[in-house]
């Protein structure tokens, strides 16, 4: 590996960490919605594969570090993953300690990252023999994965029943495009459908707003009041092992190990389950909250890294919620990456290790440092200056453009259809995992019936 490439890796890691430090703070930024489109664009733009992985790892570590900030200071989850932490963070906030929250969460994240990287690499190596079998039956694996994930949701029978009709809509659109000659017969429109699912809940909401009656019945609010207690700036370089006490360090480490081992499960579910289990034995509310948020943050970070790295290194198919969601473009982003030719096939084990390490180390050193030192001014800037409308606009614009790129004007309508259906399903409790798995299994499933 030559020095030029390493310098480039460092640069993209800095860019990724910087960008997602800011995005992570903005409230309501779903991991899939903010990471998938940008990664996808980088892949399609033809950036060197190893640089893409470095960027992604740096981005995800930074995002997971910073999305705890709005939770701590305002009780607003900075993403889906930080939602389970809101209750505990509110306890600390009530006791006037939002800065303690931030430091504990960030330190938990760092421990999660440190533990998950070597463990994921080991686990991936152990799973390599399974890869051939999975590759042969990937559609079936996705189909049963969709059923499995559907059964794990609250509204399980609705979720299970939605799989086949949703697959039909997806294949129906593809056949229409082939029939009309919009795309060649051997091209399967994928990327923009994927994004349609991702942004589905927002698309549904936007369409509803076009209906006057629904619009008038929306609950109205003034402005969102966010108050923050000014805290003293931290001195010197922060050390996560000093910020956490011994028990917190141990439970963060233990939950991180669980996060890696259960990489194929929903990280949100695991976070709630393990976090509550670890914290339930402690009586003092402040200590319990501190223990819970540091462990939870460790776990989400570990689960995210393992969920990306293990399927990527061992199998080459996105068989975890993280790989299906935010990391998806690393597996499949035609025409650059396909299941027969993606990072799994292109990068060697050494390259995986180097890219992951550079990405993670840079993201931790930049983001952790900045976060502990300047959490407050950064939050203030984002809350005061970045309107939510601009964020929604940005993602909507990206989806439109990528839809057009995939299959022309008609596909904008197609993606809206997918988005509306996906948004409806999402609202009824059919989560992204089920929908993404259905998207993968659709050609096989529809082919099976006809």
């Amino acid at each position, binding site marked *: 590996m030559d020095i030029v490439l390493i310098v480039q890796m460092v640069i993209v890691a800095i860019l990724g960490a910087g960008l997602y430090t800011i995005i992570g703070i903005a409230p309501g930024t779903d991991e899939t919605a903010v990471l998938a489109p940008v990664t996808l664009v980088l892949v399609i733009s033809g950036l060197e594969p190893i640089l893409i992985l470095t960027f992604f790892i740096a981005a995800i570590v930074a995002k997971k570090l910073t999305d705890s900030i709005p939770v701590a200071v305002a009780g607003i989850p900075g993403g889906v993953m930080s939602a389970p932490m809101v209750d505990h963070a509110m306890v600390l906030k009530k006791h006037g300690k939002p800065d303690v929250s931030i430091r504990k969460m960030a330190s938990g994240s760092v421990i999660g990252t440190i533990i998950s990287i070597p463990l994921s690499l080991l686990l991936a190596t152990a799973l390599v023999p399974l890869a051939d079998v999975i590759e042969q039956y990937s559609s079936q694996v996705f189909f049963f994965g969709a059923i499995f994930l559907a059964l794990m949701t609250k509204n399980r029978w609705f979720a299970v029943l939605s799989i086949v009709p949703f697959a039909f809509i997806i294949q129906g659109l593809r056949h229409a495009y082939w029939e009309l000659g919009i795309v060649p017969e051997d091209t399967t429109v994928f990327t923009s459908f994927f994004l349609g699912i991702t942004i589905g809940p927002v698309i549904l909401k936007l369409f509803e707003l076009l209906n006057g009656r629904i619009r008038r019945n929306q*609950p109205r609010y*003034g402005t*969102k*009041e*966010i108050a923050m207690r000014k805290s003293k700036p931290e001195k010197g370089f922060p050390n996560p092992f000093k910020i956490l006490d011994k028990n917190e360090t141990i439970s963060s480490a233990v939950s991180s190990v669980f996060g890696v081992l259960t990489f194929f499960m929903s990280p949100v579910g695991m976070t709630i389950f393990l976090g509550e289990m670890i914290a339930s034995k402690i009586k003092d509310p402040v200590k319990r909250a501190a223990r819970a948020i540091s462990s939870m943050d460790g776990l989400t970070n570990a689960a995210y890294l393992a969920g990306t790295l293990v399927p990527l290194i061992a199998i080459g198919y996105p068989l975890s919620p993280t790989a299906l969601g935010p990391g998806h473009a690393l597996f499949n982003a035609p025409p650059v990456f396909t299941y027969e030719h993606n990072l799994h096939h292109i990068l060697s084990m050494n390259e995986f290790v180097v890219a992951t390490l550079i990405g993670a180390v840079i993201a931790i050193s930049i983001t952790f440092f900045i976060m502990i030192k300047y959490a407050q001014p950064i939050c*203030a800037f984002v809350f005061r200056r970045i*309107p939510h409308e*601009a964020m929604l606009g940005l993602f909507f614009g990206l989806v439109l453009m990528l839809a*057009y*790129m995939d299959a022309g004007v008609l596909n904008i309508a197609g993606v809206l259809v997918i988005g509306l259906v996906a948004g409806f399903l999402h609202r009824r409790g059919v989560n992204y995992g089920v929908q993404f798995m259905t998207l993968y299994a659709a050609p096989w499933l529809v082919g099976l019936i006809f």
Partner: protein
Amino acid sequence: MSEQDKKENIEVWEDLVNIKDLALGLAICSVTSLGGYLVAPEGQQPLIFGLIGAVLGFMISTIMIQPKRNFTYIDEE
């Protein structure tokens, strides 16, 4: 500020927006992103132009639209 107190904002995706501003933001970003992609000169990567458009749209919307949050510091006692 008084205009905001009239309770006009609704919640989309976990945060508050004003419907008119939202329409404006969506319109600006859609035009700049798609526009950027479409005006890309022959032989160039249209995606890059689309991306530049998207970022530009984001910046324009950020300047034109006020966030619907009221942020204050509480002084430590």
